[in-house]
């Protein structure tokens, strides 16, 4: 796994790569990701070049426009237009409203767990939902375990009902 540190707290773009299996490389080149998981629709679109035409995309639909867009200085694309492009260009798309589900679980900070739950539902990574739940329970601070598991489950459920589109 590889991640560039430092810019997340300053509102910059953060991209992490996770390689399963016996490859030695810890990063993924353009056009080679089997799964693209995006925390924000514009960021999913920005990173779409990492995916292949038959890749799975899991993306949150809740927007977080960059400050220049939030302040009306530059345009932020319509969510539907972005999702339409993502659907058209890739194999399978799972969408969840991660912010909404996370706040239902108790905190918008749990959006990562919502998305992890949704990813788990797709069975595209070699980790069972139960293994992830166990790991969350073992590694998260005790006070936040329930919240995180709830967020995970909400994401898992939403990915089942969530719209999926064939390219």
């Amino acid at each position, binding site marked *: *796994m*590889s*991640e*560039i*540190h*430092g*810019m997340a*707290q*300053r*509102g*910059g*773009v953060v991209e992490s790569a996770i390689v399963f299996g016996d*490859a*030695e*490389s*810890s*990063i*993924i*080149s*353009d*056009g*080679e990701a089997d799964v693209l998981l995006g925390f924000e629709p*514009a*960021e999913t*679109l*920005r990173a*779409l*070049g990492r*995916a*292949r*035409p*038959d890749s799975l995309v899991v993306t949150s639909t809740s927007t977080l*426009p*960059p*400050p*220049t*867009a*939030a*302040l*009306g200085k*530059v*345009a*932020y*694309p*319509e969510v539907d*237009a*972005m999702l339409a*492009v993502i659907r058209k*260009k*890739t194999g399978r798309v799972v969408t969840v409203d991660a912010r909404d589900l996370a706040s239902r679980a108790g905190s*918008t900070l749990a959006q990562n767990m919502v998305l992890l739950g949704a990813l788990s539902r797709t069975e595209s990574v070699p980790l069972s939902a139960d293994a992830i739940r166990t790991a969350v329970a073992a590694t998260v601070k005790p006070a936040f375990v329930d919240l995180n598991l709830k967020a995970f489950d909400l994401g898992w459920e939403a990915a089942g009902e969530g719209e999926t589109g064939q390219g």
Partner: protein
Amino acid sequence: MHKLLEDLPGKEMLVLGNEAIARGALEAGVACATTYPGTPSSEISANLFAVSRETDLYFEYSTNEKVALEVAAAAANCGVRSLCIMKHVGLNVAADVLMTLAYIGVKGGLVILTADDPYMFSSQNEQDNRYYAKLSGLPMLEPSSISEAKEMVGAALTLSEQLGEPVILRTTTRINHSTAKITLGKLAERKTKGSFAKDPFRYVAVPAVSRKLHTLLLQNLDKARELSEISPYNFFEGSGDLGIVCSGVSHAYVSDAVRDLGITGRVRVFRVGFSHPLPEKRLKSFLRDVKKVLVVEEGEPVLEEALRNLAQQEAVTVPIRGKGEDLFSREGEYDPAGVREAMAHFFGLSLPAKETIDLSGAPAVPQRPPNLCAGCPHRATFYEIKQAAGQDAVFPTDIGCYTLGLLPPLSAADFLICMGSSVGTAAGFSRFQDKRVVAFIGDSTFFHSGIPGLVNAVFNNHDFTLVILDNGTTAMTGHQPHPGVDMEALGYSGYGRISIEEVVRALGVQNVLVTDPYKVKKSVAALKELFAKKGVSVVISRQYCPLFARALKTPRKKPFRVSRKCAGHRVCIDTLACPAMYVDDGQVAIHADQCTGCAVCAQVCPENAILPVRE
């Protein structure tokens, strides 16, 4: 207990590269670790700092890399195993020490870790520090994986003791910031005290001594070359007449590509891990055994040029290629597909066409550059300085969060070279052009390398204002302490504390102003008064970094909201552009969960329309 102190040899653990390096130091009995924080090396230090609170490991955040290396050099010359950690450009700061310490050598092991940053994820340049090994004549090790990075710390210390000189351990961002599995080794006991046997004609680098020491260094280089020949870190893989020489993280991309291209059995890979001095004999024999050689190394063509030298000595004429328009770039990072494609191209192999996504016609995604946080006091300082000094002033800046002030609408960064350069360049700008010069430097950077520039400015009677942005921490790299920090308040005892204000006054700066950037009118008025004066002046703009304040659990202030009084002047967003603000249906609004309650926007609003959120 810190997770890196788990004494269970054989246990597997998923760790960050930097954690693996810190663990390697603990398994090798490092007793002294010194650093100045810098991405991508910072987590090595953060972990060792935490470990030092629980053990007898001595760790210090030194004022700068030069000092860090001096402290470690002395520790090592007492026989104490030492590790000095810095980012690549930090080694420039420490280079004066490095070059002559190479002559003087060490008694106990000393490893200098330099974390290079190809692609400049968070650096001002992407210099290739392998040249420092060549420049100083010191040995260099370079890991290709996380587990090897851990192992190499101990190996480098042993090598350092064998040769009696420091060893440079060079990583790149992809090693520092990747996560992988390591197997824990045994934790070592630390030898925390040694002794220093006086030998001035060995340790005092005056010309007569240094001439002898240089001879010794060159003899050591020959010894190191012999060790490089037999080092397990320099190894061959595979067989065949296609040759690849690679180092660092590129080895991972090469290994994957060999498999993906199905050329196992056709290609011989020479992985260089002990990269200075090179194992010349083994490389020469490698060159005789292959028909062509591709050199896969990020950065400069260091191995490539060395191989051509060796080929010339051996009168071998096989093509040796690496950098070039059709192959690899000297810029940025490599990636698996790029390496695979270059290998296919150079060796004339077919590569299945890659299906990529054509993004033409997709909506344009707005850029998302890193930004000053909501409530960042730097934003207020920039606003106030520009109100008082005008938009037209020249703003040399420095390295830290405040460099992000270059973005509009703040636009408060005009010139930046390196740590501390704000002060020296301000002197030059004030002397050789007519606009007012106001320079920005952070508190930690001021201690790191800002002080000599200020001494120079006072002595040479320059005419500019230095704004020291004192947010009480080293914010950009993750809130490390610095000499101006109140360590007692953070729960640490045994530290001194240096007042920036007293330092500045003691240096002879006559006009010193301390402002609270959250008080806009008062700050602007005081700044205008200050700017009317000639000569060197200093503003200390003091307010906690909001992220740091949150970590300290200081009480949160009430957030603000935009009331109905808003007349749509948009002064707030046009001058401050705080990320807590947004425009909704033409109306300015504030995210209550992002607003820190700094009230700066409320003070710039011409209608007083921004008010605290009611209970």
